[in-house]
């Protein structure tokens, strides 16, 4: 959680652009990663990330603190954006149709060929998971979010998230072995 987040949110609700800018700076990389791992293509991830923050900015005046973290609200918007993206773009990215460079951002190029391939393999496996498994895997194991925050984002109980997490990992391993 960002320091002084409550104050920034209150200022952003009142229309202070710099406050929303601070929230954007902190959460944009997280939302970008979340979207990128789900959609695979860097260009799509960039478009969707922008859409997420545009939607957040437009809805900021109606934002109400319900006791959930601000991040859970953003992740919820991101999830809906990805769902809409797949609804409108029926065809999904496949390894045969997509250039390898689109899968991961240039920032991970320094991991080397093996590391990059390993990441691409896992990323493709994640994309084959059910959407809610994807969400749990990214939030819990990539972003290290606490179970409560994931539960708030997904609108589920903490017990349900633990169960989802267990099943998601089992499914992911199964896909990776079968690949």
């Amino acid at each position, binding site marked *: 959680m960002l320091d002084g987040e409550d104050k920034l949110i209150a200022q952003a609700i009142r229309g202070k652009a710099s406050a929303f800018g601070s929230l954007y700076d902190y959460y944009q*990389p997280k939302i970008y990663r979340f979207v990128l791992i789900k959609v695979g293509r860097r260009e799509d991830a960039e478009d969707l990330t922008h859409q997420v923050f545009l939607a957040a900015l437009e809805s900021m005046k109606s934002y109400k603190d319900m006791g959930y973290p601000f991040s859970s609200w953003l992740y919820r918007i991101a999830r809906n954006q990805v769902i809409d993206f797949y609804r409108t773009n029926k065809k999904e990215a496949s390894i045969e149709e997509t250039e390898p460079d689109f899968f991961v951002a240039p920032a991970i190029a320094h991991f080397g060929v093996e590391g990059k*391939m390993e990441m691409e393999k896992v990323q493709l496996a994640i994309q084959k998971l059910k959407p809610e498994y994807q969400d749990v895997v990214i939030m819990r194991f990539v972003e290290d979010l606490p179970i409560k925050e994931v539960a708030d984002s997904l609108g589920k109980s903490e017990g349900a998230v633990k169960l989802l997490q267990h099943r998601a990992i089992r499914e992911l391993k199964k896909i990776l072995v079968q690949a």
Partner: protein
Amino acid sequence: MQLIVRIRTIRCIRMNSQISITFMDLLKTLQQFKNIEPNKDFTRKSRRELLGGSNIPFGIYQNILRTLEVGASVALAGLLILVILGGASYIKFFEPLQITAIDPASIKAEAEAIDIQIELANLNYNESVARSAGESTVSVVSQEEGVSSDDSEFKVLSIEEALDLLSQ
């Protein structure tokens, strides 16, 4: 070239998948995704588009609030200036030393009056000292006389009596 890379990628994925995957290996790979950062140009452009200023979609209520905020801050600043200026004049009004009210003639008169009082006080002091000195002198004289006449008793005399005795 792209085809070669693609084939190599698929081959490597197949080779790697034959090895059993532990949870820790998977976790390690998943953690590496955290190093993915968005392109800086994209971030800059997206941020500028969102927070460019003109396209911030806030309603009339927010605009009124913002105008009120500005108005209130200007009014408060004005009030603060008035309080500071008012406070300064208030202090000046109750100042104990008013330079404009100083009259040299009255100061001189006051100083002279003080000198006179000091002189009068000195006069009184000198008079009382002289009186006591006279008394002591008379007592000494009378003592001497007493001694000479073998009269051991002291006699306290007044100044007039002492003067009469001396004149005799």
